[in-house]
């Protein structure tokens, strides 16, 4: 027995040695890193609004949203001296509504911060974006693949970027019909059954036709929705926006795409330097993030209904929803509270009176927990 005890001590000692192996590593250069200006957005030359978002970089161990750069003076300058001031609308966003570029003119962005620093960009040419030919999709064995198809008959665009917005309709299995509030129950008239969720794309989607003899993008895979996704449980829609890029802008986005958020795994690509066409006049060595470009935007929306898909098993995300009952007598008689219930439980003998209610979890009774019950204007 004594040997056994020594043996446990030995294991403990080993664990102590192994357990103390990983320790935080924070080189001073990371702690001393300053906050730099981040510029996001482009000059919309097609008549739509131009939104430039200014924010600041964060320390690596910070969480939450980065700080916005407020009260800056943001202007667009034409090569021949024209100037257009953007107006601040909060959150570090600066807007210029309805701008139309003069043909052949180059433009630059100029930012003056409240700190007294001035950040002009290089002059960039205007790239008109060709229309999206089609957003096509196909249902393969693993799910729905969505593709972008486009071409430029003039063979001038060559470099493309896309982003998208997905919206899908869903329903909850046990919509609440009764709201029990401060001792009284009321019928719910709001729609808690059918909702819509919208999300924006998170990745960088760029494509190029440089290696092709014609400026055609055929079936660029932009989104994949697996079979077990809840997105196509009823109806799904995707709005794809297309942007034409210059070669420099394409390289910038490509670099940015390679520097992903996921670091510290074996599969990481080698980190790359990010270049920018925006510099600080007061301190040319200062890092600035973002790339200014000028182009128009084209977009297209498609819908995919459940009945257009193969007979896949349907996943709603609400498979684990269950119904429970609560007796009226167990509810608090006073106080400020409000409960949602699915229905009433009637007594089986005596007068027809509700003696309790059926309930489920909040997510299973109220679709607004995961989206909005306001039907999007584009929905059909």
């Amino acid at each position: 027995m004594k040997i056994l005890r020594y043996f446990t001590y030995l294991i403990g000692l080993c664990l102590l040695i192994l357990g103390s192996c990983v320790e935080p590593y924070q080189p001073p250069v990371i702690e001393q890193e300053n906050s730099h200006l981040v510029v996001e957005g482009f000059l919309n030359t097609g008549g739509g609004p131009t939104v430039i978002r200014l924010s600041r970089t964060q320390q690596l161990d910070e969480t939450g949203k980065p700080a916005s750069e407020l009260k800056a003076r943001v202007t667009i300058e034409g090569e021949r001296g024209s100037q257009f001031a953007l107006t601040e609308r909060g959150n570090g966003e600066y807007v210029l509504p309805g701008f139309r570029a003069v043909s052949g003119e180059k433009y630059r962005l100029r930012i003056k911060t409240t700190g007294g620093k001035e950040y002009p960009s290089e002059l960039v040419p205007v790239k008109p974006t060709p229309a999206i030919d089609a957003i096509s999709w196909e249902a393969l064995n693993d799910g729905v693949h969505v593709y972008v198809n486009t071409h430029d008959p003039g063979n001038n665009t060559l470099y493309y970027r896309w982003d998208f917005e997905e919206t899908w309709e869903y329903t909850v299995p046990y919509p609440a019909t009764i709201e029990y509030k401060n001792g009284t129950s009321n019928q719910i008239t709001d729609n808690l059954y059918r909702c819509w969720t919208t999300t924006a794309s998170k990745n960088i989607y760029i494509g190029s036709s440089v290696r092709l003899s014609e400026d055609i993008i055929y079936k660029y895979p932009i989104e994949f929705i697996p079979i077990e996704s809840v997105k196509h449980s009823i109806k799904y829609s995707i709005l794809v926006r297309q942007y034409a890029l210059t070669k420099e802008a394409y390289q910038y986005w490509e670099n940015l795409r390679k520097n992903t958020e996921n670091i510290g795994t074996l599969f990481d690509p080698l980190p790359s330097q990010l270049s920018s066409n925006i510099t600080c006049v007061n301190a040319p060595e200062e890092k600035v993030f973002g790339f200014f470009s000028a182009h128009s935007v084209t977009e297209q929306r498609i819908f995919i209904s459940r009945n257009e898909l193969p007979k896949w098993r349907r996943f709603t995300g609400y498979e684990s929803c269950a119904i429970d009952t609560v007796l009226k007598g167990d509810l608090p008689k006073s106080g400020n509270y409000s409960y949602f219930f699915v229905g009433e439980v009637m007594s089986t003998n005596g007068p027809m009176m509700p003696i309790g209610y059926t309930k489920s979890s909040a997510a299973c009774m109220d679709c607004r927990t995961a989206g909005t019950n306001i039907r999007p204007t584009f929905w059909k």
Partner: protein
Amino acid sequence: MYRNFKANTIETSVEAYYKDIQHYLDYKSGAQLLLNHTIETDVINTEGKAYGVELMVKKLTGRVNGWISYTYSRTLLRVQDPISNEIINQGKYYPSNYDKPHDFTFIGNYRVNKRFNFSLNFTYSTGRPITLPLGKFDLADSKRVYYTERNQYRIPDYYRADFSMNIEGNHKIRKLAHSSWTIAVYNLTGRKNPYSVYFKAEGGAIKGYKLSIFGQPIPTITYNFKF
């Protein structure tokens, strides 16, 4: 350059070298290092130079023997390829991945008597270069990380001291087995030398970690016998 002293009991040497490197391949920025079927498209042609000095003093005999060596060595690379569309660190020289300028080793043995000896060894080398993540920012609905220039920083230096003591049994000529005991301590100072340095995202924050193996003094007792 070699020179021996005291009837060849002390050897000294000094060596210097310079090497010009051409068409050395380094990874492009953003290269996919693992499971990449088209690795040839992710490498870049660099030129470089390697140079250094090695000093060594060795004493082979006597009650106190051992050697001391020090090496200064650099391996630097740069991209000066006009047809390459990517220039690492603006075409300046940067340390290659295994550039460790300083390396120092000491091994000393002291024989107290025929049955008893001590030895101490000590090794030091500069940490290898690293490209550090510096900060992060939000762009295109995602968090992005930015880095320093290629290989501009170093992980902590490597430093280790070991100690061992050898006790031999009796020196009878005829016996079943000749045996000895070794009592040794690995990493005497318990320095947590970095085995790897890595960064990972944890709940929105990116934190750096250093993994060290044998970050404590490891005592060992060995019984050796030969027959």
